[in-house]
């Protein structure tokens, strides 16, 4: 299972993507500002509630399994020393808290991912970043979402084409090279044909932007995001 958008009617699904992005930014800042047992304790409650409000649960964290070993091992590496006392608990504890805060940030991010379709993220980008850079990012992000499954399929069919014509007999090294080269070739062909399609369909810098409007639930969410950011700034001043 990969982490991805899941259609649903949770509170988070009904929020404007911009509110959700602000909440995430506020949360990350707060987690860096309050990397203490008490601070992270409070933030844990928030993170778990946030994920639940987006209809998610522990299974969504499976996507982060590749991050977990690092987060678990880092405190051990930090605590270990080459000589007496061999292990310094306070160093390990500091890194342990730092690891844990990363985990919390990942949990909150999972809430955004499962509650926000591409189309809304794209609209948020195009409405928040002005001018051509916004249009580049918005359309580009939508194209990445579209290309990703096609590209995996291209790599797969490249492998099939080679197999269908007896390529199984070749050494692994040659097969890998053929698949990589054929895959990249197809991908280039795809990009150029897509470029042509964009042109034929009047691809413009100034299209009608997708609809996006703040609803009643967004104002409290924006307030929460702004509050977290403010709380993160307080210790600095």
């Amino acid at each position, binding site marked *: 299972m990969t982490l991805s958008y899941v259609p649903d009617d949770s509170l988070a699904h009904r929020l404007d993507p911009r509110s959700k992005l602000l909440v995430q930014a506020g949360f990350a800042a707060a987690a860096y500002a309050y990397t203490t047992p008490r601070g992270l304790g409070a933030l844990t409650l928030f993170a778990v509630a946030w994920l639940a409000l987006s209809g998610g649960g522990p299974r969504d964290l499976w996507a982060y399994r590749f991050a977990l070993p690092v987060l678990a091992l880092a405190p051990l590496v930090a605590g270990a020393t080459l000589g007496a006392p061999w292990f310094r608990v306070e160093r390990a504890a500091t890194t342990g808290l730092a690891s844990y805060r990363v985990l919390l940030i990942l949990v909150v991010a999972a809430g955004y991912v499962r509650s926000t379709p591409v189309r809304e993220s794209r609209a948020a980008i195009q409405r928040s970043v002005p001018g051509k850079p916004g249009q580049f990012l918005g359309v580009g992000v939508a194209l990445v979402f579209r290309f990703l499954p096609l590209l995996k399929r291209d790599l797969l069919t490249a492998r099939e084409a080679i197999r269908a014509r007896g390529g199984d007999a070749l050494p692994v090294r040659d097969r890998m090279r053929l698949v990589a080269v054929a895959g990249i070739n197809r991908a280039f062909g795809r990009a150029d044909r897509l470029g042509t399609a964009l042109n034929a*369909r009047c*691809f413009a810098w100034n299209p*009608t932007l997708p609809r996006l409007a703040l609803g009643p639930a967004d104002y409290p969410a924006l307030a929460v995001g702004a509050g977290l950011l403010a709380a993160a700034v307080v210790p600095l001043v």
Partner: protein
Amino acid sequence: MIGVEGVTRRFDGGATGNAGGVVAVDDVTLSIPDGEFLIVAGANGSGKTTLVRTFNGLVTPDSGTVTVNGTPVRDDLVAARSAVGMVFQDPRDQLVAATVGADVAFGPENLGCSHAEIDRRVDDALAAVNMADREDERIASLSGGERERVAIAGALAMEPDHLVLDEPFTGLDEPARRSVLDRLRDLRAAGTSVIVVTHDLRDVLGLADRVVGLSAGRVAVDDAPRGAAAELPGLDVRVPAGFDGRSADAADTSSSP
């Protein structure tokens, strides 16, 4: 009106290809009035795709001029691209979004239409290809025929004055083929010019007003269907048996469900 005057387009042979390259389109002159149903036929590699791609500036001629509604394409690309809708030979090349509705809306959005106008055009275009109420389906899960129809809807939603279809029937099953043919008939009746590129005229010869046959990039035939039918086999193009100006469908098939 689309006007083509003395258009020539060459391609380099590339590093390992033919030394001198190929002349894909060679001094072609044509004029396509509004509301005409034109077939462009010819053997593989005779330059059909290259020629029609000059109509909206996807291919730039080496020499000669193409005008759309009186304006040279090179002077106003936006006008040419919004006036000439194009359905590519492979619909997989044409679809740019992840869902049916988003894909059909793509053209009108780029033209800067209002949201109400975009919604109207998307609804109309999808209805025209029998795909109403399927806006939220993912492109990836559609069958070949449905994908071809979405490609056609995407071109229709731009409400072009001229519609070019590059081999639109390959891969369609019989009901899909019939429904696309019906729609082309309606469009022509409404004053849109329809240009169908094909090497197999069995489906469309009965609908056409005129046939242009290409051979090695040059216009070798330019005639009404009845006259053209006699000359086309010389260009390696197949013509329906016993073609007599009636619907090619009627002449050619027995299996209308």
